């Protein structure tokens, strides 16, 4: 099967999956017996029949459920995710507002985890059992087991509040003017604006949450890399490569690493999808106005359209990331395509 056909088939297969997700979502929120009007118009205005009637008409709450679902589905296909009860803005606009913050943090955390995690994992795997290996193992265990909301609070307290050497909560220095919004990614917008001070401001605020959130992923990447390298280094083909007189560096990079990459890509893909769906705890501790915080608020106030839209977005992110992982897999290991 050619690569293109493989991708096409995977894409087509994700359509019924996404459709199923919308149906399940819709059913769940219709089973929950809560009057959404309380959230829509506020407690006090519920006594005003004129306001109540206008709201019921506006949100289509007087129509039968199947009709509400059908409307919802056709709207999705037109790119309309509905209007949030809570923010009263189109859900798509809300997601657009909150997604850049999450993307910025997810990308920088993933970079941090991969750039540090893979080399350290290789080194630990190659020098398996050494003091260095044990040290790295201990650090990664620590990183992976300390909850980010706790380390986040401690880091803020120590490095921002007490020592004053790191920037505080929020995405940008409070007394600095933000660069004009183009992408919503403050680092990229600063570069587009040619404003290096703003770029510094945005990067300084990324530092602590990246270390906290990325640290968690780093531990994961490191452990998987180490385990894969340890396993691969024991294989026959590595012995063969060595016996050919190949330099050890080439043995590791060209042979062992290439095979170790397979499990690694799966882990990194899943971790990235997880990061993109919003790291609620880290976002909360660092006042990071991202998707995670938005969805938690939506869930707490039973804001169906926002929950549905957000869940759909996350489902799409997972589908895309999984697709990328599988494609990368099939490039690295063509046998996968026939599986």
């Amino acid at each position, binding site marked *: 099967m050619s690569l293109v056909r493989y991708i096409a088939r995977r894409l087509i297969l994700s359509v019924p999956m996404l459709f199923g997700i919308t149906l399940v979502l819709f059913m769940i929120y219709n089973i929950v017996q809560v009057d959404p009007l309380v959230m829509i118009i506020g407690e006090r205005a519920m006594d005003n029949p004129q306001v109540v009637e206008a709201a019921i008409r506006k949100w289509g709450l007087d129509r039968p459920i199947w009709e509400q679902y059908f409307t919802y589905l056709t709207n999705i296909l037109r790119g309309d995710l509905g209007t949030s009860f809570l923010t009263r803005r189109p859900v798509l606009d809300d997601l657009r507002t909150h997604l850049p913050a999450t993307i910025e943090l997810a990308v920088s955390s993933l970079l941090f985890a991969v750039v540090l995690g893979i080399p350290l994992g290789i080194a630990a795997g190659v020098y398996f059992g050494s003091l260095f290996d044990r040290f790295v193992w201990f650090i990664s265990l620590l990183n992976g087991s300390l909850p980010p909301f706790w380390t986040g609070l401690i880091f803020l307290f120590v490095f921002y509040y007490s020592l004053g050497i790191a920037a505080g*909560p929020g995405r940008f220095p409070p007394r600095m003017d933000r660069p004009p919004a183009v992408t919503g990614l403050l680092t990229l917008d600063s570069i587009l604006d040619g404003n290096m001070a703003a770029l510094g401001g945005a990067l300084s605020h990324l530092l602590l949450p990246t270390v906290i959130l990325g640290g968690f992923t780093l531990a994961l990447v490191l452990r998987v890399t180490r385990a894969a390298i340890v396993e691969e280094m024991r294989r026959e083909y590595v012995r063969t490569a060595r016996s050919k007189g190949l330099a050890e560096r080439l043995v590791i990079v060209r042979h062992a690493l290439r095979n170790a990459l397979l499990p690694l890509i799966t882990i990194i893909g899943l971790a990235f999808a997880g990061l993109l769906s919003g790291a609620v705890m880290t976002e909360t501790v660092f006042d990071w106005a991202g998707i995670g915080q938005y969805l938690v608020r939506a869930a707490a106030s039973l804001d169906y359209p926002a929950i549905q839209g957000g869940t759909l977005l996350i489902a799409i992110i997972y589908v895309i990331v999984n697709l990328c992982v599988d494609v990368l897999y099939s490039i690295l290991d063509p046998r996968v395509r026939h599986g």
Partner: protein
Amino acid sequence: MRRVLVALFVLAISFSFVPQVPTHAQSNALIVAGRFTDVITLDPGRAFETTNLIVHHATYETLLNINADDLSKIVPGLAESYSISEDGLEYTFVLNPNAKFASGNPVTAEDVRFSWTRLLNLKGGPSSYLTDFGFKSIEAVDERTVKVRLESPQPAFASVVTAPALSVLEKAVVVAQGGTDAENADQTDAAKDWLDQNSAGSGPFILTRWSPNSEIVMVRNENYWRGAVALEGITLRVTNDAASALQLVARGDADIALGVDADTAEQARGNADLKLNIGQTLNLLYLGISPSEFFNLPISDARVRQAIAHAIDYDGVIALTGGFADRPAAMLPLGIAGSDPNLRYTRDLDKARSLLSEAGYPNGFSMTLFIGSGSTAGVPREVIAAKIQADLAEVGIQLEINQQTTPNFLTAFRAQELPMVISAWTPDYLDATMWTAFFSKADSGVSRRLRMDVPQIAELADQIAAERDPMVREKLLTDYVKAHVEAAVFIPLIQEQYIDVLRKNIEGYVFHPVYLTEFAGVRK
């Protein structure tokens, strides 16, 4: 391997060269850290939450005002004077001839008519400011005179006029952005998106940006008709908790942390760069006990409710807030004329036990106490509920606590399904009817939810709503409080105090129980 280590080292170094203390572009702007996550819209015709009051009070103006130093006095705003017709049905406002919008254009009677009519026809939550008060019509008599007619006499109307929802917007600007005051404005008005990011008012500041869950930015109105203020601007910066707001203020990244809890206030006390500003709010947290036979519970007997009121350790409840709270005798907060703290219940366990015996429950009984989520004065509902549970257990009343998310709780409460609750009440305008209209009638307000039907209280509420003589009204209010104490349906637990942490150099900041903040006079 060495190359990798060198690369890592370079990466680490480059991270540490990121500038940590960026330059201060807006040196004379006020940075205010607080929760501010409740904002749904900043359109004065649509917003019905709390943070919007801060923004609207800074960027718009109302015809009349109530200043924080005397809550019983209504003072001129955009209107330099007003008069009420003999029958109490017609209000005539005369606009200040100097009043100008930020655009430089004068504030006219037509702008007032447009703004109020739009508010009414948007049919959103805040339209109740007009509909609840029998609003009939508004007319721009001439350039500077506005006539408002009501269906029935409403002595509270002048104080309702001070509500930020009744702010005056510049008609030309709003219309240019798609706004309309037409009958079907709820379907056709398109100015919301623009008003979420900009303001069209006459206040000391201009809204320039709102980033949801992140910040709200206002700059000084250089054209302010009372003279431009000292601050260059105000940024409301969202923080999720008081601890991080305090960190921002302590490090100088913010100037004020708004509405912190008692623990944070204690921490701030130990910092020489900071000071506290404590304001008395009118927000009440209450225990509501249904007197209705409907639930078939002992609490339908007034003596049982009075026993509960005598069993509560009020000082202990207030201690939970770190002492940053007070309490009135009934649902009429301290600071409002007629609210008499001497009528409060105090803890008297013997009295409570004898009342229970009289009612036929010498060994107590068990029932369920319902609560939502959230907190008052920094104390979560479940903590208050546990305290009440422990207090009542001392007289044999066993409470089971049922906590739900606020929407679920409110749904059940509104459906008149809950016999005993802990809930809160926050005023939107400063008049006694803000409480008497909602805690008195069998067929409306919070009293309806608890199935309270006490004719004496309902009659007093009607008399209070219609009475125009302040002296007579105060007497009626005192009677109203007494009747409520006797009925023991709503038992106030906490009247919240609002604690702000300020940097030492901030002067002229005033807490306001309804608008929350007065920024116009702030200097740093």
